[in-house]
């Protein structure tokens, strides 16, 4: 390499600079100092605006803080008791689990299919990719507003299609009936997150060495066999990561619910995040809102540990 040739004169130059250059030369060259200086701003920022608020949330949940009376008074577990006494809380917890479980399963399967399509070679791929990315890159609130009209109680184009196909008479009232409202929320969420899952899984697919696939093909393995016995086992960790990401983004999300149904009808689509928002910000009961939001944390921690283990396994292979 070039630096073996260049190094003898450089050693001397470095020595003189260390003698003459004094402090500046030392700091910008010292790796341990530089490592800390480089990292410190981010660490300070994250501690100030993620770690501190997190502990603040715990403190709030043990207090009687409201929007009207922000002075801090210790109230023990009163806020938690208030939250638990409300059946809407349990409803939200249950809804969160349903919402997350079903969405995640669908997102993984559809994301996998979509990833396979996106890595294939075909004409017009650029246009297809552009169209497929739309649901994810558009600000959630905006695309959900579009859906609000697609699911309108009277003018829904989906109803129009079903009516003209002779499947229904009248209207479905997608967002007006508990079960259908939940299904609609899940559908919109799956529609929105599938492209992200597909992009992550694409990364995994592209990382599979081509020769393994070729070898399997030469040995006579067909498309499905290659898919289930070569690609899927090899990309399982990436699929896991995509799934857990999807899960985290799903059970902490409230945008789709908030814009589509505001938790209705009669809280049948209320999730923990939206309920915490309605209590904490709109209701002004900061303590109870914080107590509800904290319920997301154990689930979050479990998901994070699972992700970490999946990533570890990937490092080994």
């Amino acid at each position: 390499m070039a630096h073996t040739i260049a190094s003898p004169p450089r050693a001397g130059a470095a020595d003189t600079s260390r003698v003459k250059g004094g402090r500046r030369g030392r700091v910008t060259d010292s790796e341990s100092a530089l490592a800390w200086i480089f990292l410190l701003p981010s660490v300070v920022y994250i501690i100030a605006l993620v770690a501190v608020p997190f502990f603040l949330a715990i403190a709030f949940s043990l207090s009687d803080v409201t929007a009207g009376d922000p002075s801090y008074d210790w109230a023990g577990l009163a806020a938690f008791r208030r939250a638990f006494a409300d059946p809407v809380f349990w409803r939200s917890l249950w809804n969160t689990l349903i919402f997350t479980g079903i969405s995640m399963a669908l997102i993984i399967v559809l994301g996998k299919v979509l990833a396979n399509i996106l890595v294939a070679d075909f004409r017009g791929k650029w246009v297809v990719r552009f169209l497929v990315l739309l649901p994810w890159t558009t600000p959630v609130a905006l695309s959900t507003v579009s859906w609000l009209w697609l699911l309108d109680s009277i003018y829904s184009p989906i109803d129009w299609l079903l009516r003209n196909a002779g499947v229904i008479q009248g209207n479905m009232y997608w967002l007006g009936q508990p079960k259908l409202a939940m299904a609609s929320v899940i559908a919109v969420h799956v529609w929105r997150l599938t492209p992200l899952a597909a992009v992550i899984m694409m990364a995994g697919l592209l990382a599979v060495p081509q020769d393994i696939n070729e070898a399997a093909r030469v040995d006579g393995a067909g498309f499905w066999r290659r898919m289930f016995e070569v690609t899927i086992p090899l990309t399982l960790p990436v699929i896991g990561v995509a799934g857990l990401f999807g899960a985290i983004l799903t059970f902490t999300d409230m945008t789709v619910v908030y814009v589509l149904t505001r938790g209705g009808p009669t809280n049948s689509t209320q999730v923990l995040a939206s309920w915490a928002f309605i209590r904490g910000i709109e209701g002004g009961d900061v303590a109870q809102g914080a107590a509800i939001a904290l319920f997301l944390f154990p689930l979050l921690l479990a998901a994070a540990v699972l992700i970490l283990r999946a990533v570890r396994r990937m490092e080994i292979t």
Partner: protein
Amino acid sequence: MTRLATESTVPAPAPPLSDRDADRLRRRYRLRHVAGRVFVYVAAVVAALLSASPFIWSAVTAFKLNSDLYNADNNPFIFNKPPTADHLLYLFQQTDFGTFVWNTLWVGLLVVLITLVLGLPAAYSIARLDRPWSGWMGIAIFFVYLVPPSLLFLSLSRLVVTVGLQDSAWSLVLVYPTITIPVSVWLLIGFLKTLPRDIEEQAMVDGYSRLGAFVRTVLPLLVPGIVAVVVFAFTLTASEFIYALAFISPSSQKTLSTGVPTELIRGDVFFWQSLQAATVLVAVPVAFVFNLFLNRLVAGFTLGAVKG
């Protein structure tokens, strides 16, 4: 992997083929190939339609007359009456749409700038300066990404009030980097790992300090990755909803994400065509730019995420 290797040796060696058999096989494989191609195209078109149909339909709706739209018997997918641009004009002239776009843009750009200024050195420190804590720090930052806004918005909104930024878009500039820094650092670590270490070593041999080597040689080579991160971080800020909703109520300070759903829906009155126009006007450019950098982002996910 080892299981696969043994498995793939299983098929017995094929007996020698006669010409006719070979021909038949060839035909079969050609047919299978054609079927495969047709399948790929059909699947691609179906996927594209499922994803994009709400937007395509929004684009049609945006130009519809009220008397066309508000008639449940009309075919919602075509113009039953002549199209009109009135609702598009309404969006620009009578609503704060322009303000929302402007707020989203400047908030997004400042957030991206802060993200790069803080995130680039952090990523370099973790990826290249080989401290004993580098690995742990990478994992810690990854976990920060998983702490969701729905857990923090209450305390952060109190914090925003304390520093006097409530009802100002500046509160978003302050808070959004909590979302963008972790994911950007994570992607940048991935991109940094693709650059050979010889680059800095060579620059240092030529007399640059470590800092100089980072600024003069590593940063320019990292530009493609940085651009991908900029696009990604900007998309994240533009989509954010919870903080924007919790911190800001006056419409002059709202971003697209909260402004369009709250200001264009007044009570029960929906400005449907204008809403649909707004969605399409925002969706198309963002997805377009994103698509330009998709390959690089995919690479970043592999490198940063998969290879830790």
